[in-house]
Every structure is written in C-alpha cells, then in structure tokens.
C-alpha cells in the first residue's frame, strides 16, 4: 500500500466511517419518509385514487423548493433548525439533518416517477377486486414498481454521497472533507487522488449492486 495511505490510515478509516454514517442516515430518511411522501405525491395527483389538489400542491411545492436550493446554501440556511433539533449545528450528526432533508425531497420525486410508470389498469383491477388504498399500495403498486424503486434509490444514494462530501463546511467530516483538507489544502495531490479512487469504487459498487438487485426483482 502507498506510504501516504499507511501514514493517514486512521484518518482515512474514520472519514470513510463518517461518510457511511451520513449516507446511511440519508438512506434511512429517504425510505422512511421519502417513500411515503412520493407515494402521496402520486396518489393525490389529479385522476388518482386519493386525488387531492391541496395536498398534492403543498407536497409538490415543498419538494421542489427543497430541491431548487443549491445544496451548500440549504446547509447554511438550515443551521438554526439543525441547532434546534440536535443542539448543535457542528459535527457529523448535525450534518445529517440537511442531508436527511434533501434525501427525502430527492427520493420522493423518484418514487413518484416510478409509481407513475405502473400501468393504470393494474390499479383498476385492484379496485375491482375490492382492495383498500393500503392494500393497493402494498400488494399492487409497490410490487409492480419495485425494481424501479430500487433503481431510484440507487441513483439517490449516489447523490447522497456527493452531497455528503461538502459537509466539511459544518464540520461533518467524511471522505470529501478529508480529501479537501489533506489532499487539496496541504497539497498532497496523491492523497486526494486516492480518495477520489475510493469514491469511484464505492459508487461503482453501489450502482452494480442496485442494478443487479433491480434486474433480479424485475419479472415484467
């Protein structure tokens, strides 16, 4: 292994851990909140099962405005909110707040798009069999959209990794922050290159696993 990696082994492992932590929390919120939000975005649309213009417009506006923030500004803008719920705006845990919020907005939009691809007739058949909205979601909608939901999450996770690299501004750490502080600011270009290679490998792995899983789930 190159000397420079051995020399900074501890910091590198720690920064990878921070990245995993930040991205992990993002994924958690994307699935726990982004998935339901995206589902409601779909169901409340005009002509859909829970058609509700007010709910749709509100969710749509929230998702759009969150996504239209340049991410760096969103992080700064959310500092008071972060301080309110975490107690501090600095550190890795504090960094997960803006990441979770962008994760929800990002994934909910992809969920909505995936669900729009489910053939309408399948939902109609479900209604004709007497399915409730909850049953339609779990037994039809998610089953039919599952591979597309997985591909969307894969895309989202890769974006979360990218977002997490700038969390250095609030002391969030992570691989990106490490690469900037040591590689760029201390002119250790080789170190920065290695960090980029680690990120590339990470993204490749995630993309490959996501695609493999999606393909396996897709029986259409």
């Amino acid at each position, binding site marked *: 292994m190159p000397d420079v990696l051995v020399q900074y082994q501890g910091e590198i492992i720690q920064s990878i851990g921070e990245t995993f932590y930040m991205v992990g929390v993002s994924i958690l919120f994307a699935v726990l909140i982004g998935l339901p939000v995206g589902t409601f975005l779909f169901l409340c649309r005009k002509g859909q099962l829970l058609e509700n213009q007010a709910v749709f417009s509100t969710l749509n506006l929230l998702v759009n405005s969150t996504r239209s923030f340049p991410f760096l500004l969103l992080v700064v803008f959310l500092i008071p909110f972060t301080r309110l719920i975490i107690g501090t705006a600095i550190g890795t845990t504090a960094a997960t707040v803006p990441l979770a919020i962008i994760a929800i907005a990002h994934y909910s939009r992809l969920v909505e798009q995936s669900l729009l691809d489910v053939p309408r007739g399948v939902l*109609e*058949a479900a209604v*004709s*069999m*007497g399915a409730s909205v909850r049953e339609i979601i779990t*037994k039809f909608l998610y*089953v*039919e959209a599952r591979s597309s939901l997985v591909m969307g999450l894969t895309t989202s996770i890769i974006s979360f990794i990218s977002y997490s690299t700038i969390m250095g501004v609030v002391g969030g750490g992570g691989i990106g922050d490490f690469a900037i502080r040591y590689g760029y600011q201390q002119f250790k270009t080789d170190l920065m290159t290695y960090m980029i290679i680690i990120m590339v490998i990470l993204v490749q792995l995630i993309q490959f696993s996501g695609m493999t899983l999606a393909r396996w*789930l897709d029986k*259409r």
Partner: protein
Amino acid sequence: MIDVQHITKRYGAFIAIDDVTLTIPKGAIYGIIGASGAGKSTLLRMMNLLEKPDSGRVNVGGQNLTALSSKGLREVRKSIGMIFQHFHLVANKTVRDNVRVALELARYPKRDQLARVQECLQFVGLQEMADKYPAELSGGQKQRVAIARALATNPSVLLCDEPTSSLDPQTTAEVLAVLKDINERLGITIVIVSHEMDVIKSICTAVTVLENGHIYESFTHEPHGIKTPGSSSAYFVEQLKGVPRDA
C-alpha cells in the same frame, strides 16, 4: 341479478350514458354491443361502480351499490369479478400469486388459499403454469389467469370488458369456451362488452345494442356456439379464395 335504473354519466359536456335502464337476469350471458364511443364500457364499469353514475341506481344481487359506503362497496366488489381487454395482471407476481391476491383481499382462510388457487387454475386449464410470470404466457393464457383471479372468491357475477379484443381468433375461442363453462358449471352471470359480433353471436343469451349512450334495442338471443377457426395453411387459402384448395 343486475338491475340498472335510469343511470346517466357525463364527462364534461359529453353524455356517455343517458338515462339507461337495464335488467340482467341471473344465469345469463349478457352481451352489450355497439359502435366505439357508444358507452358500452362505461355502462359495464358502472355495474361495479368503477365509474360512479351521476344519477340513477345500480343494484347487483339485491344490493344498491350507489347507496353503499366505500367500505361496503369494497365488500360487494369481492362478489363481482371483472376481467379486462389488457388482462391487468401484476407482472411481478407469479400466476399463483396473481390469483392468490384476490383471496388475500377477501380474507380467505390462509391455509386454504393455495388449494383454492390450484382449483381455479385447474378450472381454466393452467394448473401447470402456477410458477410462471405473466410475461412468459400467451395472451389467451393471461386472460385465463385473469379469469381464474376473478373466479377465486366465488363471485355471482363476472363483468368482461372486451375480454377477447386483443386476442387472435384461436385464443378467442379458447377464452369464450372458458366463459361459457363458468356460466354453465358455476352458474355465474356473465356480462360481456364487445365490439366483436362473433363473440356476442357465439355465447350470449341476451343482448343490448347501445347507440350514443342510449339503448337502441334489447332482446334475447340464441347462442350459435363457439366456432373454432382453423389455423392450417389450407384453411387460410380456402378462406381467402373462397374455395377448398383441391376442389
């Protein structure tokens, strides 16, 4: 069995169904035919309230659907099967699970579900296909799975929206035979909407002709029986030239 009273359905300024009253007797194979845009599908889709009529009443099996709560309506729908032109199977579920989901929705006892699925698949002649996905089946087989799914909960009525319109003549005959069988052996009342004259002619015991949202005429009809079309090359030549090949 089905009693539709003065129902009207508008889409904006367009009147799709205009004050239609219709009674479908128990045990019938009832055909609804008409030009495209006549309102056939809309009329059928109001029989399980997939479309809500703007006015009028829909009675199925003595229940007034238009007066039911949404929960009550969901319950009644479990006794009204429906099949569609494009089958609408869940592509990510196996044939078995496609049929089984109807049983799950109806809270059918879990331990009896697989046996019931097998029974229904057997009825439509697809017991060997239980582990396949819809993408691996032919159109006629998909429609038979849809029929098995609709039959699973022992409905008293089966609504068929253009059930054979995306099938070739051979598989059309196959599906019609299954529908006729269901009617005769299980006593299920069947309503078929179709623009295909042969479909109506072959199995329907009564017919309504729709025109621009009105009933043009309703009458009883003697089914002609299902003709299985030939598929040999000689048959095609004979049909096209109008004479047997070696005549």
